[in-house]
């Protein structure tokens, strides 16, 4: 039996509480499509390519777009990768190499990742006014089925390790931050804090710190600027904790005084 299938990335984000008019996708069904298979027979799961990476990566929904351009039916966020871009592109190519010999007809246009958020009817201007950049983290790779009414159950999943996870702290907030280098630790820590307070994101800098102390100092400079300009729920990022070396990445226990 044929099903309407696609392979995509599940994401988490600090989704806004309200949106302009549109038929909204459920939060847990929002995804970034890697390969659209169409109405086809199920692929062979046994040979589904395993990604060579375990960390999920991070991205920024940087603008709102309406697709297709000529007669838009979809409101989508354009995706700019913060980390994991090269790995994700390479993995997509590997998926294509796996799918094409099986006879699937795949979109050959260049990969412009986006995240569908709503379908028509909608008013473009309202969405443009409402839009604010949104941090995203990738949590898994899935084979999705489209069953109509904007519902996308998953048929097969490969979970990825999130680039940050909040953990319990008695008085403040605390996260396990993961990254392959200090640049990623800094970027991912910024993202974790932006999930809590989105204006924080705009203070992120293009920098490549080389020590954890530099990471902490950079984050605290962001806290200072944010507090001066907007007010900030974070007092400071503490110097607590060291970097733990894992298999292919580092984990840092970040504690933020609030």
């Amino acid at each position, binding site marked *: 039996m044929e099903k309407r299938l696609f392979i995509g990335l599940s994401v988490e984000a600090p989704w806004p509480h309200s949106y302009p008019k549109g038929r909204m996708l459920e939060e847990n069904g929002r995804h970034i499509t890697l390969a659209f298979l169409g109405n086809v027979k199920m692929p062979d799961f046994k040979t589904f390519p395993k990604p060579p990476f375990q960390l999920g990566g991070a991205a920024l929904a940087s603008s709102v777009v309406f697709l297709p351009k000529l007669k838009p039916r979809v409101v989508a966020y354009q995706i700019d990768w913060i980390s994991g871009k090269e790995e994700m592109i390479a993995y997509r190519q590997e998926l294509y190499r796996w799918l094409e010999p099986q006879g699937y007809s795949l979109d050959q246009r260049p990969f412009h990742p986006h995240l569908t958020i709503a379908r028509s009817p909608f008013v473009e201007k309202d969405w443009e006014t409402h839009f604010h950049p949104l941090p995203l983290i990738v949590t898994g790779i899935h084979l999705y089925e489209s069953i109509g009414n904007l519902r996308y159950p998953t048929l097969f999943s490969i979970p990825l390790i999130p680039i940050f996870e909040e953990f319990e702290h008695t*008085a403040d907030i605390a996260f396990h931050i993961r990254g392959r280098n200090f640049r990623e630790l800094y970027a991912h820590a910024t993202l974790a804090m932006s999930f809590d307070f989105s204006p924080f994101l705009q203070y992120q800098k293009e920098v490549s710190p080389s020590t954890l102390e530099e990471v902490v100092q950079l984050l605290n400079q962001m806290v200072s600027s944010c507090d*001066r300009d*907007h007010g900030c729920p974070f007092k*400071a990022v503490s110097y607590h904790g060291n970097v733990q070396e894992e298999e292919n990445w580092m984990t840092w226990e970040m504690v933020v005084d609030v």
Partner: protein
Amino acid sequence: MFKLKKIAPATYLMEQEAGMLVPGLIVATEEIMKQIDFEKPLEQVRNVASLPGIVGHSIAMPDIHWGYGFPIGGVAAMDPETGVISPGGVGYDINCGVRLAIIPESLKSLEGSMGDKLLKRIFELVPSGVGRGQKKERGLSDRDYREIAQFGARFAIENGKGFAEDLEHIESKGFIEDADPEAVSDVAKSRGQKQLGTIGSGNHFVEIGEVETLYQPSLAKQWGVEKGQLYLLIHSGSRGFGHQVCQDTLDDFLAKGYGKGLPDRQLVSAPIQSEDGKHYFRAMSMAANFAFNNRQIILHEVRKAFHDVLGISPEQIRLIYDVCHNIAKFETHEGRRLCIHRKGATRAYGPGAEELNPLFRKTGQPVLVPGDMGRASHLMVGMGNPLTFCSSCHGAGRAKSRIQSKRSWKGRDIFDFMQKQGVSVMATSGRTVAEEMPDAYKDVDRVVDAVEDAKLAGKVARLKPRLVIKG
């Protein structure tokens, strides 16, 4: 697991292990110790005991929980010649503290819509929550910062925000000497520029309620506190100004290598006698004076709200006391001058302490213990216990993490729940309220029982919240 030996009611000794220069002293009951994970904060008590120049014990209060370097609810006394001063022993929110005032009215005056009107008016006058700074007021100038350094809380009073009498009812008369605006970075000054007179977010609040129970009626009478009166409790600190002072110092101390060999970088400290140590003390004192002014201005605005809504004149709202609970101060204990770090701990001088005004010198100083926004807060009297360098607890202490609290209240109408408990809550952020719900905290009644059993402070009055503003 730490081995603790009970040495007195609600008082446990943590024996001195290798690396510790003094033993630990834990003020708590067995019941309290079972309520939260004590291992991490006790590790911090042990770490603090290893700091150079520490005297007596590394002390933990019954509201102890995990902090940065030092536990929150920790006290450490340092010898001024051989000891160190640590920003982690003071905390980011320098001179975070509490002030209590009494209003000569009963709950009846808040009946009907008056309570909500008052709450709304305070919410208008006192900015609270993230990003709510002073929009109408001009920002602080360099001259203002110099005057804050020179005069402490008198700066606000001389600008028409309070009465000279208020100063007699503030710890250290609202003024820490040695404050120096030159010791503070421009970044700190810019963060503080529009933050005087603002509550902030997190666990800071303005609370109005009823004096519900008197435990020492004659003492309460001397202080002018009567059963059934309204009270006002303000909890805030030095805002972004103080946070930046702490951050700047931590960065500087670590860059200079003071963190080497420490079990936790957040314990980083400099010798009190060093230029770096003295520089921090001057900057910290500046932030402490900023915080005294912050609470003074908040009090002024709340007095204004009472006048606008209930016609109560500002001078009728009497300040009982203002205490610091994040600070390092030089004090004399049993004839010895010491630098006392209190992080999440309150000074609790008993009768006879020279610094106190004549009334409190006779009775002992008021000790303010905010609990949670549903159950109670407490007014206590200091007993001047030398074992803790005249220190007591600073609150109930959290029992649940912020995530746990948010999770457990998700999808429920928290404002309605509080209303049904008889407490009207107004806040900029519903999330803050969810994080601060009463069950996120230990039962303050049990905490003050421990404090009383350990003879740090005695219960004077139980205060029941009715109107609460959160950040």
